[in-house]
């Protein structure tokens, strides 16, 4: 087990390094600096600014400084556009918001998806099953940027029940629409995966044996069927998590929730490269960490995995 974790880490660390180098080289290759504006700055001023941000250093010095800063101090450097704020300040402001509704979306998608999928598999070909299948087929075509306008239209413009945007410290009326918009399509996928894998497990011999012994159905499902049935789902949770973090960009842009997505899109328009890089690397780290956790969980639950 230990060697498995070490081996997975040995893939994760270079991946992260590649991501950092890739985004740095992209930024370095960008035509025009962040300080090239419509009205050209006097050369002395430009030189001063470049010296302040270390832009006058040679490539190798800059990239090693940057990587060292990121790796050793989690320091992503200063923002190019906000004079008095570092990338860390911006992340510290936006990330808790993203994490809050991202967490709830993940929980909602997983809990509802697993419950719905399991229920549909147990009551195969009942109205519940058809409902679940219908939902999981229909919701495939409702990614977050389609769900968000529809929800806003119905619950804010027509019914007037929920505020149309903002965050307000994460009060629940402000949370509902972002969480639903973000989780719907993943909920559908989770329900579908869960249903098919549960159906497969329920047809195996050991479940039949358990039932023949007279163990109550509830116990058979929870104690015997759940563990093997949840395995295929586990490998989907990694991509689902990444999708939700990525989707938060749309949520932030649409509901003005003020998460990292807001800053990412704003810095994309104002060419604030250091903020973009910082957020990209942060998201990349999260992705890699999450996949690592899922892999380890997988190896831990499934005794057939050799590691």
């Amino acid at each position: 087990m230990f060697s498995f974790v070490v081996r997975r880490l040995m893939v994760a660390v270079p991946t992260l390094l590649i991501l950092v180098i890739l985004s740095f080289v992209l930024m370095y290759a960008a035509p025009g600096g962040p300080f090239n504006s419509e009205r050209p700055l006097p050369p002395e001023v430009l030189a001063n600014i470049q010296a302040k941000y270390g832009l006058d250093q040679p490539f190798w010095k800059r990239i090693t400084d940057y990587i060292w800063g990121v790796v050793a101090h989690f320091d992503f450097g200063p923002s190019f556009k906000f004079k008095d704020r570092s990338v860390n300040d911006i992340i510290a402001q936006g990330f808790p918001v993203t994490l809050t509704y991202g967490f709830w979306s993940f929980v909602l998608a997983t809990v509802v998806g697993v419950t719905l999928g399991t229920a549909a598999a147990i009551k195969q070909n009942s109205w519940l099953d058809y409902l679940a299948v219908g939902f999981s087929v229909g919701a495939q075509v409702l990614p977050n940027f389609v769900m968000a306008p529809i929800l806003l239209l119905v619950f804010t413009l027509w019914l007037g029940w929920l505020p149309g945007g903002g965050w307000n410290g994460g009060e629940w009326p402000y949370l509902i629409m972002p969480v639903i918009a973000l989780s719907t399509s993943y909920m559908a996928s989770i329900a579908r995966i869960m249903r098919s894998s549960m159906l497969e497990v329920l047809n195996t011999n050991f479940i039949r044996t358990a039932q023949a012994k007279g163990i109550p159905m509830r116990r058979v499902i929870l104690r015997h069927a759940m563990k093997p049935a949840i395995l295929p789902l586990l490998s989907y949770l990694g991509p689902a998590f990444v999708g939700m973090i990525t989707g938060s960009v749309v949520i932030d842009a649409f509901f003005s929730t003020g998460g990292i997505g807001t800053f990412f899109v704003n810095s994309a328009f104002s060419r604030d490269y250091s903020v973009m890089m910082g957020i990209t690397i942060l998201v990349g780290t999260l992705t890699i960490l999450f996949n690592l956790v899922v892999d380890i969980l997988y190896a831990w639950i499934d005794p057939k995995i050799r590691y």
Partner: protein
Amino acid sequence: MFPNRTTVEDIENAAALAEVQGRSLWASARARFMRNKAAVVSLIVLILVAAFALFGGFFAQWERDFVDFSLMGRNAHLGVPSFETGHYFGTDNSGRDLFARTVQGTGISLMVGIVGAMVAVLVGTLYGATAGYFGGRVDGIMMRIVDVLMSIPFMFVLILMLVIFGRSILMLFIGIGLISWLDMARIARGQTLTIKNKEFVEVAVATGVHPLRIILRHIIPNLLGIVVVYATLLVPNMIIFESFISFLGLGVQEPNTSLGALISEGAGTMQYGTLWQLLFPLFFFVLTIFAFFFVGDGLRDALDPKDR
């Protein structure tokens, strides 16, 4: 000695009969696909959507970039969809004909999906088949590269690229091409691993056929079924991907448009009572994605022996 005439005829007839009864893999797959009503209907819908994107422009009464200044600001009353004004789908906030714009948006979205799928088929299949066929260390390295690329948050890197190298359709295609083949490479590799131990591959190896030729002539044709299925399922994902970026305003730029950009615009103006701006692009988006998923599912049931 010789069999008499009637026997010969009988044998010939029997042979002809056998020919009719014996169906190739593809023929039986087609029959299975045709039995799946949802898939057939979806295929027809897709053809109609494609026809709309290709020929819809001929029916538009207005150019897609013609700005009607007399409508500006009075869109909610005057820009209503109607046949009399020639704005079948109404107009947008700048007084442009939404019908012509939806035609173009649908076209660009379809093109993005198809380009993504084509790159996936070409690069992914070849890559996966090569890795699977050679196996061992080559396979290990090639698949590790795929693993590494897969755990990069590409949406963010692509947006970074779009900002740095300018927002253009070409850049979008490059970005989509960079990621679309990864899953396909994995699928093709897995399938190759089972195919490469078959007798016909052994024969090819034994007769000294060059490895590249074995991959191209013997392995890839046998992958085609599964490749077609996943390519069809990939198209809607690529369309969603592009629409996501265009929704943020970072993808296709004015005066061009895609369904994602149109949905974004419609969503931004819906509080002014111009709902048609949201609903028409949304309708075509949902219809296209739905149809592709159903056709893909139908193809999988028809071609993928595992799920039969």
